[in-house]
């Protein structure tokens, strides 16, 4: 349109600022604090200008220097903080901050467009961090706002009220929904993460299980790290996990056949060796490979696990799985740990079936030898205690009972915040502090066993989970992390012994929830009112069920589920070519339907108008655009000025059009108009 390049007014810019602020809000959490600070300062500058008349950078050389200098400084800070490779974080930080700097600079319509379009990019960056329903809804809102910003500078009726603009924008988004759905379902997925950035994939900085268990102090720098991708966890790491509500995985049992809580041991990595503080697993090559033999003694339960990405290979399974999972390439380690062929960088689903009563006959010399190793010279008091029991006890099972009785009858306390252990940490724990949680008990119990010549190992994993009565999905969170012991007895194989149960039976009967302070279970205000607690629980269950469905069906929609769905819809052997073909066809169909609907609803275009539009189009190609408010004669005058060679033709066509449209001359003239417009081939 040939409108002058009006600068957008303050109210239009305020709308854009609001939209951008909402879009940037999640980044305030994901990014270092100075990103949010810089963003807020810049848009505040803009708002202070719009509302209070503060000067903008353009108004004086000093302010311009300040503005550009601050922008340069931010770039330096970004690179010095994130390093020189532009990854997800650095890119998002750069976009967020520079966008705010641009907002201060908006003067012309062109700046406004640019900022709007960058706003859409800012929306996308949010999905690099989370794809939760909340963010999706929030970003939809931002898109509606951004659209309405574009509408407000773009229609000839820019004076439309905010309500109307938002309505129009919302309608546009709704119309885009079917297209979005088709693209979502049919656009070929690439298996695995698209961005080959290992530090970005998987665990979003949430704590996850680790391969090693370290007793003793946590070095301070590992407390903070950027993510849970540390390969070492110390004693106390699980207590950190227990502080986390992040979801580890979700389980859907077939036929809602959920075993009781105390049987819900979710097996993870098995730890074999210790240097006195750190417990770590053994490589498969260090173990006897064919040693895994299981007798199943109860009816198997079938279930599907949806595992959150943790960037490791191991998988979790209910003790003990009857076979390898379906839907995922994997193998069993000789110690019963289930491992995937690749690192879990995306949310994945697999089906398993497990029998909760079993006999694990995995012996092998190397395994038993490894399960007896103690670090030389460590834990003298513990060993002395073991020897004194060994002399008194009648056999191995009697010895085990003695050890459990020791935990049960002495003043051991289950505590999530135990005092620090000094010196020989196992001795210190067993004889001095006597406060700890699962990993303290599992580790010291294992040492007590090995000191008495009973093969023992630590199994890490999760215990229990929250069963949601709405959808019967069991959600296992990081706070359900647990460690227990397996001991080997000649006739019975590896038996699970959970020393934590000897200290705190609640932990197993009811799960971790009962041990958490009440304030973590429900918001403090309502904790005293039963009805409100119930209502709260109800709402929470429904919300969780909804989130579960969202995570599994929308966020977890990967190439595999896509294939399954498509073949269920009758597309045999769907590959990307077929998908693209069907997608194209569907999009074309949608376009045609929409076009048809819009024609159907609009008054039929009169032929004279259609011809005239063609005439306008021919001129528009030469850069002569008719403004919406411009009458035919005014437009003709303007066009003649630019194309003097076609003056006669333009005049004649305009005259005919005006007579046909505004005088209703007989439509015999219509053919003439059509002919003249057909013959009208303007060229510069």
């Amino acid at each position, binding site marked *: 349109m040939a409108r002058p390049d009006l600068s957008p007014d303050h109210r239009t810019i305020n709308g854009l600022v609001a939209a951008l602020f909402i879009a940037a809000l999640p980044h305030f959490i994901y990014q270092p604090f100075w990103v949010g600070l810089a963003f807020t300062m810049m848009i505040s500058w803009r708002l202070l200008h719009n509302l209070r008349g503060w000067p903008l950078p353009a108004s004086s050389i000093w302010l311009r220097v300040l503005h550009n200098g601050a922008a340069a400084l931010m770039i330096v800070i970004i690179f010095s903080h994130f390093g020189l490779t532009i990854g997800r974080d650095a890119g998002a930080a750069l976009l967020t901050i520079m966008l705010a700097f641009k907002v201060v600079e908006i003067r012309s319509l062109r700046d406004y467009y640019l900022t709007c379009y960058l706003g859409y990019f800012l929306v996308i960056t949010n999905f690099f961090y989370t794809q939760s329903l909340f963010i999706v809804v929030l970003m939809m809102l931002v898109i509606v706002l951004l659209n309405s910003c574009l509408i407000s500078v773009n229609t000839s009726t*820019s004076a439309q009220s905010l309500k109307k603009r938002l309505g129009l924008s919302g309608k546009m988004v709704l119309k885009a929904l079917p297209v979005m759905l088709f693209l979502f379902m049919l656009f070929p997925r690439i298996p695995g993460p698209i961005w080959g950035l290992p530090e970005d994939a998987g665990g979003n900085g949430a704590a996850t299980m680790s391969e090693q268990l370290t007793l003793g102090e946590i070095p301070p720098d590992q407390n903070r790290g950027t993510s849970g991708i540390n390969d070492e966890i110390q004693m106390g790491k699980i207590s950190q996990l227990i502080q986390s509500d992040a979801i580890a995985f979700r389980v859907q049992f077939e036929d809602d056949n959920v075993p009781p809580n105390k049987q819900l041991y979710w097996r993870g990595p098995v730890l074999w060796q210790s240097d006195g503080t750190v417990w770590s697993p053994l490589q498969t090559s260090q173990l006897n490979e064919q040693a895994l033999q299981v007798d199943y003694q109860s009816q198997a339960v079938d279930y599907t696990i949806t595992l959150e990405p943790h960037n490791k290979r191991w998988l979790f399974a209910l003790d003990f799985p009857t076979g390898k999972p379906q839907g995922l390439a994997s193998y069993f380690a000789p110690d019963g740990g289930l491992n995937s062929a690749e690192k879990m960088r995306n949310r994945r689903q697999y089906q398993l079936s497990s029998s909760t009563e079993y006999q694990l006959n995995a012996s092998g010399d190397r395994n038993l030898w490894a399960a007896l190793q103690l670090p030389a010279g460590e834990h003298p008091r513990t060993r002395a205690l073991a020897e004194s029991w060994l002399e008194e006890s009648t056999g191995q099972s009697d010895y085990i009972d003695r050890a459990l009785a020791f935990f049960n009858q002495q003043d051991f306390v289950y505590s999530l915040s135990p005092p620090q252990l000094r010196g020989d940490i196992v001795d210190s724990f067993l004889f001095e502090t006597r406060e700890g949680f699962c990993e303290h008990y599992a580790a010291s119990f294992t040492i007590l066993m090995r000191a008495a010549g009973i093969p023992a190992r630590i199994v890490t994993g999760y215990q229990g989970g929250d069963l949601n009565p709405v959808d019967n999905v069991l959600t296992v969170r990081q706070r359900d992390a647990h460690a227990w012991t397996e001991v080997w007895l000649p006739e019975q194989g590896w038996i699970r012994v959970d020393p934590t149960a000897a200290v705190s039976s609640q932990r197993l009967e009811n799960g971790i929830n009962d041990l958490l302070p009440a304030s973590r279970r429900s918001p403090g205000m309502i904790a005293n009112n039963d009805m409100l607690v119930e209502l709260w629980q109800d709402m929470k269950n429904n919300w969780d069920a909804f989130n579960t469905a969202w995570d599994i069906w929308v966020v977890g929609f990967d190439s595999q589920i896509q294939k399954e769905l498509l073949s269920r819809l009758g597309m045999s052997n769907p590959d990307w070519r077929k998908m693209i073909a069907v997608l194209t066809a569907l999009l074309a169909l949608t376009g045609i339907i929409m076009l048809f609907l819009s024609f159907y609803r609009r008054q039929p275009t009169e032929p004279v108008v259609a011809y005239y539009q063609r005439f306008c189009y021919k001129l528009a190609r030469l850069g002569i655009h008719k403004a919406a*408010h411009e*009458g035919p004669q005014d437009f003709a005058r303007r066009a003649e000025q630019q194309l003097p060679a076609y003056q006669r033709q333009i005049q004649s066509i305009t005259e005919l059009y005006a007579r046909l*449209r*505004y005088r209703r001359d007989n439509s015999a003239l219509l053919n003439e108009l059509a002919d003249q417009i057909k013959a009208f081939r303007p060229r510069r």
Partner: protein
Amino acid sequence: MAQAQLAAILATVNDIILGKQHPIKLALTCLLAKGHLLIEDLPGVGKTTLAHTLATTLGLRFQRIQFTSDMLPADIIGVSIYERETAKFNFHPGPIFNQLILADEVNRASPRTQSALLEAMEEQQVTVEGQTQSLSSPFFVIATQNPANQIGTFPLPESQLDRFLMRIELGYPDARAERDLLLGQDRRELLQQLQAVITVDELLQMQQAVAEVHISHALVDYVQRILNHTRESGLYQTGLSPRAGLGLLRAGQAWAMIEGRDHVLPEDIQAVLPSIVSHRLQRREQETNQDWIEQLIHQVAIP
């Protein structure tokens, strides 16, 4: 034929009042559309001369009424006086019984006197002591208002402003026109030499012809869009009335006729729009944006 006459009228008026082609064309449009005209401007820019010139050129009986604060309705309409010879009350018609009335500084009179005038304008008749007296035909009122020195005046309320089809401003002439004016003959002398270009009958025929200028559906759509915009955009305190819409169409017809067309184009509506809506619309925001009417035109697309 009518177009030639109109061109002659415009040429004559433009000879007297220099450099004001557009307001003059609008004034003529207003008279052709049978509307009353409000001229709002400073003293001395030629309001009276314009009214007088128009009256003379169109062959109309002209009367100027200077409004003052002590004026009574009778001073406009006339009075019945008892005459001894006939022993009867005899009606002595006031200045309003003329064909073109210049109501000078209409805002100086009291509301009562103002409304007497405005009623007469609306009804084309006056009622004196129970007797209805028709006013002459054609009947035009050109009222002037002085925007400055508002102390002791009664500005016309918005509802009465609606009675005027158009409001125009004359403004200062540009440098060249002013130079010609300063060097040229005395305007009063010129006025006295002026001859009528058309007769009253011809004027009435032209008014008849204006009503026959074709208005298409497409054009009505456009006018409706303008009306809706003023009502729904939220930019104005109140939208345009249906009377304003009728006025737009009527004035558009007259303008098209002066342009020599037998049908109305959107451009005609756009040409008359500022003078028709400027006294009827009030912006909600008190921004000192002079060309808001220009914006109004830009905001409504032509269907």
